[in-house]
Each structure stands twice: as C-alpha cells, then as structure tokens.
C-alpha cells in the first residue's frame, strides 16, 4: 500500500509565462516525482503539485531560487487520506 507520509501539495499561481515554463521543467524532472494535480496553464490559473517528502527540499529550493512564490495547501497528504478512510469506515457502520 502506497503511503504519502510527509508529502505536501503546493499551490503556485504563475506570474508570467516564464514561470509557467519553469513549472513545466519541474514536472519533467522525473526523479522528483512531482505529480501535477492541476497543471500550470495560464497566469490566472493556479497549479497544484503533489510533492513527495523525499523531493520537498529540492522542489522548494528550485522554486525559491527562481522567485516563484508558493503556498502549502496540504501539509501532510497521508493525514488527509487517513481522515478520509476513517470517515468512510464510520459512514459504512
């Protein structure tokens, strides 16, 4: 069973086309295993990225070095998954 302990979801609203391109570059780095839940497509459209715990430091460094602001919208994905599972079990009972 795949766990997502410590994985985070980051939200980024690109300020210009260059930032959109940089986010695409980030997505193409397969070793980082960034999962775009919402793709960077236009300036007004935020992108959401699931970042594994093991890649967090590198991804955040990448963003900060290029002045791309981000917010953390999920601190720990596994906690939310556990909560979802708990709610489903409770509902079934």
């Amino acid at each position, binding site marked *: 069973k795949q766990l997502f302990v410590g994985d985070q*979801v980051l939200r980024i609203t690109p300020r210009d086309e260059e930032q959109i391109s940089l986010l695409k570059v980030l997505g193409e780095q*397969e070793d980082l295993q960034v999962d775009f839940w919402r793709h960077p*497509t236009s300036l007004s*459209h935020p992108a959401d990225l699931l970042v594994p715990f093991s890649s967090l430091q590198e991804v955040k460094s990448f963003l900060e070095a290029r002045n791309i602001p981000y917010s953390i*919208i999920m601190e720990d994905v596994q906690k939310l*998954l556990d909560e*979802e599972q708990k*709610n*489903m079990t409770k509902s*079934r009972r």
Partner: protein
Amino acid sequence: ERSISTFDFGSYHTMEEIFSWMDTLVENHPNLVSKLQIGQSFEDRPLYVLKFSTGGSNRSAIWLDTGTHSREWITQAIGVWTANKIAEEYGQDPSITAILDSMDIFFEVIVNPDGFAFTHSSNRLWRKTRSLNPGSHCIGVDPNRNWDAGFGGSGSSGNSCSDTYRGPYANSEPEVKSIVDFVKSHGNIKAFVSIHSYSQLLLYPYGYTTTPAPDQKELHEISQKAVAALESLYGTKYKYGSIITTIYKASGSTIDWTYNQGIKYSFTFELRDTGRYGFLLPATQIVPTAEETWQALKVIILHARDNLY
C-alpha cells in the same frame, strides 16, 4: 444496501457498494432503468452502463460518464447521485420527463473500475488504468489520452511511467474500446458528457488542435448558459472554452473523438474544489457539487433535446 432510502449519497463508496446500489436502482425503477454490461476491464471487472429509457427503439440518446480517472472520487460519487436524480425526477420534473419521453440516457458511473479498486486498496492517488506495459515496470494508460483523435500528438506522453501515458495505440484500453464500440454500434448518440475533476472548467473540443470546432459558437453559448446555471446555486466559479485554449494541448482525449464521430454536443467537466483539497475533496461537498453540476447538465441535455440534428 437494499434500499435507496438508506443509501448515503453524501459519502464515498467502494465499487462493490456502488454496483450493489445500481442493482437496487434498477429494482426500484424497473420500467425506467436497466443495467447493461458493455465490456470488461483489463482485470476482468464488468463495465456497467445504466440505461434510462421509457421505450422506443434506438432513440436519440445522451451519454454521461464519470470516473475515467480513478482518483477523482468526487466524479464517481456525483455519478451515483445524478443517476438517482434522473430516476427520481422522471414523472416529477417536467423537463426531465420530457427528455426521457423522447430520448434515452446512458450513464457509465465507473469508467475505470480497475483503477478505482486500486485507489481503494493500494494507492488512493492512482489515475490510470491497470494494464501491463510490455517491457516496462510501469503500469497503466491514461484513458483520456487513448482515443483515436490526434492520438500520439503532443499533450500526451509516450513514457509508460507518465500519468498521461497514451498507450501503445488508440483504443488499446478495453475501458476505452468498450465505449467506442458502444457509441459506434448505437449510432444515435446526440450528446456526450464526460465528467472529471478538479479545476472548475466546462470544456468542449478541440484539445489536439487549435483549429476551432465547426460548432464552436454554439458550444460556447451552451457552455456560458450551463456555467451560469451552475454558478447560480452556490457561486462556484467556472471557466469555459475549448480544451486547448482553456487549459492545454491534450491529444487523444475522449470528447475530441466523440465530436469527430458526429456527436455535436460533446463536453467535459472539471468539477469543483472550492477549498484546497484536490482529489481528497471532503465527503460533505459531494451533494453540493452534485447539485450544482446537475444544473449545468440539465442545460446541456435540454439544449440537445431541443436542437436535435
């Protein structure tokens, strides 16, 4: 669940629970709802379609589907709510009654059952099918890049490890091929709506080319009305437009193929996440999401009925 009155539409359910609920829906509405099996998934799970029909032979029809991407749980959940709504509104809501008196509705609630089972057992965030890719340790194909419409172009991946892997050839996935065969053999489907989540969008063709769809003006106007109806309920903000102009280039996608087959009213939804939950949308939002989506769906369905071609 043996009674629809005890089924909790505001909760997420496993595939077994949903399949059982389908049987109950059919039992409760024997003169309106039946269950068809249009094929089997890669792992031999049944591909069920609910048929809403008041009779007639090969009537003009509307296709609805949810659950193409397995991790988008809100879509399967609103599929259940919506199918129930259609059954309950017949004979009550004049517009739905009028539609079903002249047209059939086909509804595939779980397009990707293997992926859905996998999200419940092994990886909640799995998107693709579960087919094996010879020569690769990576599993699965993106069923929304596997259609024969610009297949293989940019906006899809040739890497089997990618979440947008297009597969070895168009229709390689039985989950896709089954729909293709069904749509072709039926031959009289007039509207096709595929429901995804989450970016709050209503999209129409094309995704694989910048060439505008010949019916773009009409599709745009319908989208505008549908989005206005959706937003009227809870104020959820949607964008709308063609796939390629609104989000990005996507080759081999479902509604591009259906449109090229002559199904003019081809749309795809990206449902809401007004909070910050993505694919983990809390169950409390299932019913509000379903209610607002229903408003938009009715606009599309009614337009199709009133503008048969």
